[in-house]
C-alpha cells in the first residue's frame, strides 16, 4: 500500500464524506452558538467590570480570572460528567455550548474592556456633555469605536472557540472530529482523520488571514 492509498484513499474519502459533513454541520452550529453567546456574555461582563459598583465588579473580575484559568477540557468534563450527580443532566451539545461560552465570555470581556478603554476619554466626555444617557453613550459613541479597535483579537478568539469545539468529541458529541475518528475505525483507514484536518483548515484559514489583514489595516490607521 502506498502512502497515498493509506492517508488519502479516494474510495474511503468518498464513502466517509457524508459522515464528516454531518459532523461539520454540528461543529459549525456549536462554534457559532458559543461565539455569539460568548460575545454577548463578554460584553455584559466587560461593562460590569468597568462600571458596576465595587462588589459586583469584584465578582466579575473573579469570574473572568477563574474562567481564563480553568482548562476548557476540564470544564467540559465537569459539566457533562459531574453535574448529573446534582441532578443537572445536560446533553453533549448543551454541555459543550455552555463550557465554550463560559470561557469565551471571559476572554471576550477582557478584549472588549481593552477596546472600551482604548477609546479616547474625550469621546465619553463629549457624549456626556451632550446629555446622552449612559446607554446611549455606550451604543452610539463608545462601543462602535471600541469594537472596531478589537476586531482582530475578537476574531482570534472566535477562531479559538471554533477549534476548541473539537474537544466536545470527548463528551460523545458527534462533531467533525468525533465523526472522523468513528469513520476511521469503521474504514480501518486514517483517511477520514486527514480529511477532517483539511476541513478544519479550510474552514478557519480565511478567518486567520482576515485577522492578519485587519491588524495591518488597524496599525496603518492608528499610526
Amino acid at each position, binding site marked *: 500500500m502506498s502512502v497515498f492509498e493509506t492517508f488519502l484513499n479516494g474510495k474511503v474519502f468518498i464513502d466517509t464524506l457524508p459522515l464528516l459533513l454531518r459532523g461539520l454541520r454540528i461543529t459549525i452550529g456549536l462554534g457559532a452558538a458559543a461565539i455569539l453567546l460568548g460575545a454577548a456574555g463578554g460584553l455584559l461582563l466587560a461593562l460590569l467590570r468597568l462600571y458596576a459598583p465595587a462588589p459586583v465588579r469584584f465578582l466579575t473580575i473573579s469570574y473572568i480570572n477563574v474562567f481564563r484559568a480553568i482548562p476548557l477540557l476540564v470544564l467540559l468534563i465537569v459539566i457533562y460528567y459531574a453535574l448529573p450527580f446534582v441532578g443537572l443532566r445536560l446533553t453533549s451539545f448543551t454541555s459543550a455550548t455552555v463550557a465554550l461560552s463560559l470561557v469565551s465570555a471571559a476572554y471576550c470581556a477582557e478584549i472588549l474592556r481593552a477596546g472600551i478603554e482604548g477609546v479616547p476619554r*474625550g469621546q465619553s*466626555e463629549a457624549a456626556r*456633555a*451632550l446629555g*446622552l444617557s449612559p446607554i446611549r453613550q455606550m451604543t452610539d459613541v463608545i462601543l462602535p469605536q471600541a469594537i472596531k479597535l478589537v476586531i482582530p483579537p475578537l476574531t482570534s478568539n472566535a477562531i479559538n472557540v471554533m477549534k476548541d469545539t473539537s474537544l466536545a468529541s470527548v463528551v460523545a458529541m458527534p462533531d467533525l472530529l468525533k465523526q472522523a475518528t468513528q469513520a476511521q475505525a469503521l474504514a480501518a483507514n486514517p483517511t477520514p482523520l486527514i480529511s477532517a484536518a483539511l476541513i478544519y483548515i479550510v474552514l478557519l484559514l480565511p478567518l486567520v488571514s482576515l485577522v492578519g489583514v485587519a491588524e495591518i489595516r488597524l496599525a496603518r490607521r492608528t499610526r
Partner: protein
Amino acid sequence: MAPIINMLGVRKTYGTFKALDGIDLNVEEGEVVVVIGPSGSGKSTLIRCINQLETHQSGTIRVHGLDAGRRGDLVRIRTEAGMVFQNFNLFPHMSVLRNVALAPVRVRGLSWTEANDRARKLLIRVGLGAQIDKFPNQLSGGQQQRVGIARALAMEPKILLFDEPTSALDPEMVGEVLDVIQQLARTGVTLVIVTHEMGFARRVADRVVFMDAGRIVEVGPPKAIFDAPQDPRLQTFLKSILAS
C-alpha cells in the same frame, strides 16, 4: 433676575493640589464671560465643573436654578449647557451631519429628519455647508472645531462652555473659529470661554475673570482688566503674554 450660573465656595482638590480653591462666580443670562490665567490655574477645571465633567468636592454650583451636584438635575443642565472642547472630540465614526444631529434625536427626541434639517442649517451657518457628508478626519482642525460648535448649538442650549477652543489649532485656523464664536456672542446666548487669545477676550467679553492657583484673583470689564490691572499676579501674567 437670578444669575444663570451661580458658583458658591466651589472647591476641588487632586490629592493635595488645590485645583479650585473657593470659587464664587455669578454669570448673568446673555453675558459673555472670558476666563484667563496661566496654565494650571484652574480655568478648565472651573468650566468643566459647570457641567460636571469634573466633580467638585464642596460648595454649590447652580445652573439655571438646577443643582449640578444632584444627579437628576445634572442631565437637564447638560442639555441646557453645550460644551466645545479643546480637542474637538467629534465622533470619528459618524459623518459631520450625524455628529450634529445625534444629540437632538437622542436627548431632545427629534426625528432624524428634523434633526438633520437643523444640523444642515447650523453647518451652513458655521460655513460648512459643503462638508456635511464628510467624516471628521477629512476636515482641517478649524473645520472640525466649527463642527464642534454646531454640535453644541444643535441642542439649542442657553449656555455655551468653551474649553480653550483654539488651543489645538494651527495659527492660521484660529481666526475662523473665533469669528464663529464672536457671531454667537451677539445672539444672546450665555458664553463662558476659557482662552489664551487676549485680543479676542478684549473684543467679545462683557467680563473677564482672571484666575491663578485655583482662585479668582480679579474680575472686571476687559478695559479694566487689560488696561488697568490691579493685582500684581495679573500684571505679571499680562506682561508674560505680551512678551511671548
